[in-house]
Each structure stands twice: as C-alpha cells, then as structure tokens.
C-alpha cells in the first residue's frame, strides 16, 4: 500500500449502479475522500450525485437500485454489503437531499434519534446535544418546535445536527443548498467548514451550486451523465475555463455539456 491510500477514508472504485434491473445510471464512477477533507461531487440535476451517495450509504435497495460492478471501501475495508445501520455505527452517515426531518417530532427529538445506534450514556448524549446547539444556536431556540413547522434552513440544520449526533467520521451531505436563500446557504456552508476543521468530520458533498461548493471544498469531482468528467483541487476547478463556462455561468453562450469538449471524454483516472 502506498502512502496516500493510508489516509484515504472512503474510496469508490469504478462502480456501476442499475435501477429496476434495467436502468443504468452510474457508468463506472470512481472517487476518493481523504481523511479530514471536504470533497465536492458536482453536476447538474440528474447527473447521478444522489445515486453515488446512496450507493455508499447503502440506501439504494429501498429504491430498487443495485451496485452491479466495482467496490466501495471505508478505511480500507469493503462496505458495499453492509446495512445502513452498520455503516452508521462505523461512522458513515448520510444527510438526504430534501432534509427529511421527522416532521411530527420536535427539533430536539429529531437530534436525539441521530444517536439511536450509539450505546452512550445520558450525560454523553446531553453533552453532544449541547455541542450540536453550539454549532446551530438557532436550533436551541427552536428545540421544542415540531420540525415540520420550522423553516427550510432550520430543517437543513436539524438534518445535519441529527447526523452529527451519531458521532460520524464522515457525512454524505446531499444538496444542502437546495431551496435556500443565498445568505442561508452561505451560513450552512460556513458551519460545514467549521465542523470539518474543529470536529474533524470529513464530507462528501453533492451539490449543483458549484460556486458555493468549490469555495467550501478541498477537492472536487464533476459528474455528468453517470460518469466523472473531471476532477481536481477546488481552486483548480474554480479557475478552469470550462468549469467557469459550463457550471459557473460565466459565459454568454449558456450552459453546454462537457461531452461537447473532446479532451474530457471518458476520463478513467482510476483505471489508468
């Protein structure tokens, strides 16, 4: 094993995902998340970001999806056959797209459900709850409200806080910016960065909001039509002319596809 493999927390190796036995959605996706980093998974709607995250967290089977090729390793051991509960116990948890708070539970009850898999004492749980509140002071104010009656931003915070209560080493965060006002998105990405630096949680962050995601992330992958079309450090990607043109909306021509650009076709970095 080489040096870099030791610090790789998660590696996804050339996976293929099929829904309903026939719909091929991921066509050989490979990516890696080094310990302690924020890695962004970028791409337009329908590119396969959610599918990739669910393949890792093993939530695909509930949607009749299946990983048919490739492998997924966490801390060097294969995890593709583990149940979601087992993965959470090992430190990988997903925050689903659209937040999915428990609407009829209070904000605090939502947070507490996150600790379900842990065998922790009451005082320990209490301490972690206060920790979550220290990152999301707004949740403390709203602790007794039903989650269904809180704002979109508060629900996103609740969903992230709930995941934190599992004491994960890695969070798979799916489109936290969705439907939120720009300054709220900024606030949430700031907290993500903070959690990454202070609590040492690594993130795999799926986003359509490429600009915001690249500001927060260390490294990024661009997914298109079930394939990784490009990857690089966040600053390289942000400075890349094609990324600027296609994803950051900095061109007059409107958004095109990477597929139109020959030299990016079918990059298979991990097979090389």
């Amino acid at each position, binding site marked *: 094993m080489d040096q870099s493999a030791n610090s790789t927390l998660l590696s996804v190796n050339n996976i293929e995902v099929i829904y309903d036995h026939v719909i091929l959605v991921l066509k050989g996706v490979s990516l890696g998340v080094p310990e302690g980093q924020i890695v962004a998974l970028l791409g337009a709607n329908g590119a396969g970001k959610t599918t990739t995250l669910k393949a890792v*967290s093993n939530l695909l089977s509930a949607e009749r999806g299946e990983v048919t090729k490739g492998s997924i390793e966490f801390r060097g051991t294969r995890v593709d056959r583990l149940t979601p509960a087992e993965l959470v116990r090992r430190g990988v948890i997903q925050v689903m797209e659209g937040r*999915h708070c*428990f609407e009829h539970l209070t904000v605090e009850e939502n947070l*507490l459900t*996150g600790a379900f898999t842990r065998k922790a004492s009451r005082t320990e749980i209490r301490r972690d709850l206060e920790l979550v509140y220290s990152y999301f002071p707004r949740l403390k104010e709203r602790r007794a409200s039903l989650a269904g009656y809180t704002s979109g931003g508060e629900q996103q915070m609740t969903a992230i806080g*709930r995941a934190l209560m599992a004491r994960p080493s890695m969070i798979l965060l799916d489109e936290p910016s969705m439907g939120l006002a720009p300054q709220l998105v900024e606030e949430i990405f700031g907290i993500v960065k903070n959690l990454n630096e202070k609590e040492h949680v690594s993130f795999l962050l799926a986003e359509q909001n490429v600009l915001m995601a690249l500001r927060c992330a260390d490294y990024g992958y661009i997914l298109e039509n079930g394939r990784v079309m490009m990857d690089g450090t966040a600053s390289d990607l942000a400075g890349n002319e094609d990324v600027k043109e296609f994803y950051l909306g900095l061109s007059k021509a409107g958004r095109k596809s990477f597929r139109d650009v020959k030299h990016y076709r079918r990059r298979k970095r991990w097979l090389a």
Partner: protein
Amino acid sequence: MTFFFEVLIGGLLAGVMYSLVALGFVLIYKASGVFNFAQGAMVFFAALTFISIVERGMNFWLAIAVTLAVMIALGFAIERVVLRPLVNQPQITLFMATIGLAYFVEGLAQGLWGAQVHAIELPIRDVPFTVAGVNVSQFDLFISGTAAVLVIALALFFNYTGIGRALRAVADDHQAALSIGIPLERIWGIVWAVAGFVALVAGLLWGSRTGVQFALTFTALKALPVLILGGFDSIAGAIVGGLIVGAAEKLAEVYIGSSLGLNIGTGIENWFPYALAILFLLVRPEGLFGEKRIERV
C-alpha cells in the same frame, strides 16, 4: 334523565372495548402503513390461548405471562415471515397478506385449542353500583381503568424512550429513519409485538364479557368505524372514536330504535356505527385526530 345517563355511561364504557381493539390497528398502521386485518384474529388467538392454558390448570397470572410471551413471539414472527419479504410492495398487497394472515391465525388458534366456547372469569365481581342515582357496572369501570393504564403506558413508551422515539421516527419517514441507522425491521418487529400485547389485553376483557368464541374475530370489524372516526394514525383518536361509537350505538338502539317502533335488541347497534362512519368520511376523511400532512412552502 337518569335513564339517559345510564345508557350513555353504559355506552361509553362499552366503547372502551372498541378502543382497545382499535389501538392495535393504530400502532401497526402508524409505524408501517399496514392495515392489519388480522388484529381481530390476534385478539381471538390471545383469549383462546389464555383460557385454554388456564383450563389445563395453570395459575391465572402465570397464564397471562405465558400468553404475553406467546403473543410477542407471534408478533415478531408475523413481521419476520409475512411482512418483511413484502417490504416495498404496494399497500394493497400488504393488506391482502394480512387478510390471509387473519385466516391463518384463526385456524391456528382453533387447531391448537379446539373450537368450543369458553368463559373467562376475571377476578372482579360484576355487581353494578349506584352513583347519584345512575347505575354503573363495576366490570365496565374496571375495563376503562385497564384501558387508561394501557394508554398511559403506551404514551410514556412512545414519548420518553429511545425505542419509542425511533418508532415515531419510522412512522414519520422510513427513508430518513433508515439513513440515520434505525433498523426498520427491528422496529416493525417491536410494533407487532406491542400490538400482540394490546390484543392480549383486549382479548381478556372481551373474552370475559362475551365468552371466548370465534365471533371475537369480528370485533375487529367494529374497530373499523372507530378508526374512521378517530383517524387511523392516532392513539387519542382510537380512544375517543371508541367512546363515540360505544355511546352512539347504545343511544341509537334505545332512542332511535324505540321511536321507529322496533324492539330493543333488533340490532340497530350492528349497523349504526357504520352509518355514522360513512357520514363522517364525507365530512372529515382524515378522522378527528388523524395527522394531517404538514404543508410548508
């Protein structure tokens, strides 16, 4: 007026019995979205198992413990063998499966213990006593007390334990519960076991009122109007719905029945709750206490 109150109180207390059966439905429906047609069969199974082992000489309390263990095991087994393989199937498939299950559980009960009618003797005397001139049945009062204790216990369980919280989480959003590591199958197993426990309580009380016989399985059908009135996913609704159905059918029997010139006992109470439920469906289909989906923009 005294007569009116007697009928009303008698009806309310009898309604508690319906509430108990409805409660079993609500638990399973809330947690897994399955309408468990077999709840009535489970009530019958519990009552028959209990009385059969008592008649074979077992101590009353020990028999309750043994039957409880059997019902919990049955609950887990049903989840494991019948429902787990059907996860992600359409609701109607699950409903059909529970119809099949109802026949299986009935058959199993009678196969094990035979089909004759038994009487359950609970250690309470059924002597009516009088409060402010109104006759109240001691037995009915005991039933209400039991139901109240059961509901309080369930409420504490749901609101103040980790498992209870997880149960409500699963009821709210399966996917999200799965994503944070709540094992759905274990939770569903627990729900079925709790429903088995509720069936035992209902079975003992119904059995001592009407005798343990096959007709017990039809008490499940009386729970249907209760559920429509109260809402399929509300414990409070099951209680209040039961009370309304109990009171309404007795009052209808006595007052509407007699004004139509029918003799008491011609069975208006057999159809009146359904008529009430249908009226209710037109006005408030989610029931009195049913959870409305929280809509936010």
